[in-house]
């Protein structure tokens, strides 16, 4: 993961780097995003003029594909690295701004359903991944990291858990590589399966939010289906992210009990430190719109700003996915992750179908 061609998500999770150093990478993200939008428009117009039957490939997929081609065929110079790593910032900015497109009642209804499903999903995923880790004789802390990563929110959760349970750098690199590789695969498999099942936007959005691990990939997988599905996927994923502190705290207490991690002295401070603060921004934005702070045109502008921020995120998702680097991390964690992800995807699909029957999504 430390190669010049792979942007370390560890770095991107921490702090914003110095302003000048990010300019080349951000320009690259923006360039890819703009190219993706242009490709979508040009191909659609060309197909219409020549009366071709051509599938509508959205800018989301183009942005990811262009990024993937660049990162897997070229060596990205170091000067672009810190700018590319800002994709996490654009993702969170996009999510906060997306709050403007949610009526508070929708947040409460869908967020409530999501939270209920998230609790079931997390419990079953943790049990499943722990059992698979034992079956494949993975190191116990690597199993913990994979379980946290696949049950809650991918890379962020692994990084949060790594510090809390004193895991090795090597273990966290394994877990991150497995989660990222599987996230990349889910971008193509989730929409294809949903189309074959004729899922509606809300059901699919919930499934993508519950089943895809990393927030950026969950957002992209949702947006690849439809704009409405993308919104729901972000909401469901945000509900899942909100649980990060509780699960990491549970693991920290367990490993401290085994004498292999520091004891957690103040649990409330621990929970607050691990809580993803952008969720509060998302809720605040939704509240502001609920109190009619903005008129209709302004809400549309905020929604469009959110889309621009996501466009840069999608370019970053492609750019930081380097299959060659990931393959160096070994097969066993990947196999455990893949098996777990397939089972979790089936499980979350079942949960969403059940919720659809109960609440009529």
């Amino acid at each position, binding site marked *: 993961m430390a190669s010049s061609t792979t942007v370390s998500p560890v770095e991107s999770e921490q702090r914003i780097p110095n302003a000048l150093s990010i300019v080349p990478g951000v320009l690259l993200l923006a360039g890819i995003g703009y190219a993706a939008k242009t490709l979508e428009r040009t191909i659609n117009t060309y197909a219409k003029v020549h009366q071709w039957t051509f599938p509508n490939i959205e800018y989301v997929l183009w942005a990811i594909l262009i990024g993937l081609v660049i990162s897997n065929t070229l060596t990205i110079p170091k000067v672009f690295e810190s700018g590319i790593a800002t994709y996490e910032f654009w993702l969170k*900015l996009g999510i*906060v701004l997306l709050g403007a497109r949610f009526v508070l009642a929708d947040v409460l209804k869908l967020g409530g359903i999501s939270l209920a499903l998230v609790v079931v999903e997390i419990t079953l995923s943790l049990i499943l991944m722990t059992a698979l880790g034992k079956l494949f004789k993975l190191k116990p802390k690597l199993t913990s990291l994979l379980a946290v990563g696949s049950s809650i929110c991918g890379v962020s959760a692994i990084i949060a858990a790594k510090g809390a349970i004193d895991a090795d750098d090597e273990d966290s690199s394994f877990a991150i590589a497995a989660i990222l590789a599987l996230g990349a695969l889910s971008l193509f498999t989730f929409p294809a399966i949903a189309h074959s099942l004729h899922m509606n936007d809300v059901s699919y959005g919930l499934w993508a939010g519950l089943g895809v691990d990393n927030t950026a990939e969950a957002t992209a997988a949702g947006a690849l289906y439809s704009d409405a599905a993308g919104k729901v996927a972000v909401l469901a994923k945000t509900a899942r992210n909100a649980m990060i502190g509780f699960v990491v705290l549970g693991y920290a207490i367990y490993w401290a009990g085994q004498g292999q991690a520091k004891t957690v002295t103040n649990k409330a401070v621990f929970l607050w430190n691990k809580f993803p603060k*952008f969720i509060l921004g998302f809720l605040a*934005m939704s509240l*502001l719109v609920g109190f009619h702070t*903005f008129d209709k045109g*302004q809400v549309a*502008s*905020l929604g469009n700003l959110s889309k621009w921020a996501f466009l840069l995120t999608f370019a970053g998702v492609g750019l930081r996915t380097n299959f060659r680097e990931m393959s160096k991390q070994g097969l066993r964690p990947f196999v455990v992750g893949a098996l777990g992800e397939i089972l979790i995807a089936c499980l979350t699909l079942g949960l969403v179908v059940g919720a659809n029957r109960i609440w009529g999504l």
Partner: protein
Amino acid sequence: MATDKSSNAAKGLSLSLDTWAVIVALLLALAVKFSILKSVPW
């Protein structure tokens, strides 16, 4: 000593990515509200 203090102050002021995202989003919302950003196209 003075360097230590200033670096501590800088560390104290450094904000997490999440917090920056919320601040920038709120600044953008203010810019939209007060028509500094009039209409953002897509």
